[in-house]
């Protein structure tokens, strides 16, 4: 196992982590600012992927499809907010979990109804379809590098928005003490709606970006939702900065751990046992990481001060 392999796996981990960040950013804001548990956040990721697949087959261009899919994902998020979520803000968490779980079931069946159960294929855009040789004999698709660039770009944009604009200040204030912000004359409902729509659009963006490299299918958001929750819990609920660091951390630990756990264990165990237990250990690593971080910092890495 060489240093180059470690670097390649770190790159893979970074790419995975950035996708996780795009999903977790919206989730952590909605949870932190509105104290609202949105299990349906994963299906918004799925809807983004389906939208881009539909627009790509309609227009024939991934770029145009992405430009159309983003406002569509935003509109869809706002529609869900108006129709369902708005009525749940004052309810307790159990009601929110039940209602948003219902939306998962409804939308998973919905996309099956509209697009069928078979996975859809989204072609990689022509300009980004090449690959570069980054290690001896391993070509790395340019498109994955584009995902990394887009993820970092969105992270920078979010940092600017949250830390240096008025609306960002209100969002941060809302995360700390929503009733007080409301008492100071801010329309907190409208703020909620903006945050919600924005979060839905980010999740949709993540889905759209992975559509060409993964297959677009019903239920694709369910597994990633669990990881997104791990990320926001590690990062500290409501903190975008925490979500960013935690997402990168989870992406790296998961990818690098999966490929190196058996090798590390081989130092202390015999090869057969190392490969056996490495295999068992690899999928657990991120949860062990979460448990360890919560043990030392119960509110996550960057808790929002209340």
């Amino acid at each position, binding site marked *: 196992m*060489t240093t180059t392999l470690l670097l390649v796996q770190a790159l*893979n981990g970074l790419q995975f982590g950035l996708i996780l960040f795009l999903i977790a950013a919206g989730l952590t804001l909605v949870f932190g600012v509105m104290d609202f548990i949105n299990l349906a956040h994963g299906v918004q990721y799925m809807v983004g992927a389906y939208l881009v697949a539909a627009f790509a087959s309609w227009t024939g261009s991934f770029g145009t499809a992405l430009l159309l899919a983003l406002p569509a994902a935003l509109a869809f998020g706002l529609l869900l907010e108006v129709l369902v979520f708005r009525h749940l803000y004052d309810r307790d968490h159990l009601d929110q979990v039940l209602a948003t779980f219902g939306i998962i079931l409804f939308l998973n069946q919905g996309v099956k109804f509209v697009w069928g159960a078979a996975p859809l294929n989204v072609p990689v855009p022509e300009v980004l379809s090449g690959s570069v*040789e980054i290690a001896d*004999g391993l070509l790395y698709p340019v498109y994955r590098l584009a995902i990394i660039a887009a993820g970092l770009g969105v992270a920078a944009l979010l940092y600017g928005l949250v830390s240096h604009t008025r609306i960002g200040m209100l969002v941060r204030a809302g995360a700390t003490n929503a009733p007080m912000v409301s008492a100071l004359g801010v329309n907190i409902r409208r703020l909620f709606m903006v945050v919600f729509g924005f979060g839905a659009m980010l999740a949709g963006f993540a889905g759209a970006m992975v559509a060409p490299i993964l297959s677009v*299918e019903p239920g694709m958001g369910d597994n990633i939702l669990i990881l997104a929750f791990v990320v926001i819990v590690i990062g500290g609920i409501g903190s975008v900065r925490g979500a960013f660091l935690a997402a990168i951390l989870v992406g790296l630990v998961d990818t690098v751990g999966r*490929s190196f756990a058996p090798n590390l264990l081989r130092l202390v165990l015999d090869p057969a046992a190392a490969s056996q237990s490495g295999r068992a250990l690899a999928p657990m690593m991120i949860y062990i990481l979460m448990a360890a971080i919560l043990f030392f910092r119960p509110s996550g890495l960057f808790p929002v001060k209340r």
Partner: protein
Amino acid sequence: MNHITKTLGLAGLIGLAATGAQAQEKLKIGLLLTLSGPSAVLGQQARDGFQLAMKDLGGKLGGREAEVIVVDDELKPDVAVTKVKGLLERDKVDFVVGPIFSNVAVAVHKPIVDSNTFYISTNAGPSNLAGKSCNPYFFATSYQNDQNHEVLGKVAQDRGYKKVYLLAPNYQAGKDALAGFKRHYKGEVVEESYVPLNNLDFQSELAKIASMKPDAIFTFMPGGMGVNLVKQYRAAGLADRIPFLSAFTVDESTLPAQQDAAIGMFGGSNWAPNLDTPENKKFVAAYEAAYNAVPGSYSMHAYDAALLIDSALKATGGKMDDKNAVRAALAKANFKSLRGDFKFGQNGFPVQDFYLVKAAKRADGKFQTEIAEKVFDDYADAYGKECAATN
């Protein structure tokens, strides 16, 4: 009292009517297949193959009018058991044909054979049904699950590959696949890598493969996983350097999505669309004309299942009453299989040839697997000897 007599009388009448109708009654075949969800295409192939055979046989099996009842098992063993009970008790089918998946096959096995109904598998061939739990009512027109993997193990061994990288999803069939591969492969396994079931991103596996530089990789990645692995393997530039050996990963069900990325990749099979027999040529042409898709082995097994039932009923003169006679006729396999040589072993599984197949693009732009070489001749599965001699 009067009431009871009436009921009994009525029951007697109904019973009489039933026996009277027996002679003209249609033969009933229950097709149990996965027809929804991501794997639906496999069930559709089998259904279409069976129905094409029915069309070619003029809607009759062994000279008797036949009715085909198609049910969807939803790839859920519990759902499958409920639906099979409906087929057995409500529809009173004479044969159950299917399913695609082994977990379904094992779940419905007991209800079917316990009701003394013939059960013909068109794909699933779990080891217990071939070995310890073999049953005189069970036949398979497909293969025992390990065999396609054994083909690749034999090929890797014969080609003198020293180091092979194994990759499979982390569930029972994935582990069985790698065990099947290792039955004939004696070289070094550099890594036995398991990914979570339904994993779709293989980038970190590919990085590992590139750094380990094995002589070949062997993988079992059915459905959408296979589509993604093949596309990513090609994009990573590995396809031209490290031979890609696989089973159930590159076939007619995944090729429409993999397209050019899969060309030159290897699989193991008991048949391929370009197998050169007159029956097979006719079958492939008719299937493509009817369903606008290249048939896979799923269709071929189902087509053969219809021919098998037809041959048995011809031998019994269309009668199902004497189950032993039907069984003896089935076991003879007196029909011309699309794959050429075909006979049953004592456990009801075929003894047949196996081939190394290669994905290719045809002149008309469609994709199919083509035979590269014959690997096993008249090959029986490894579990037949565990099957009790009473069968």
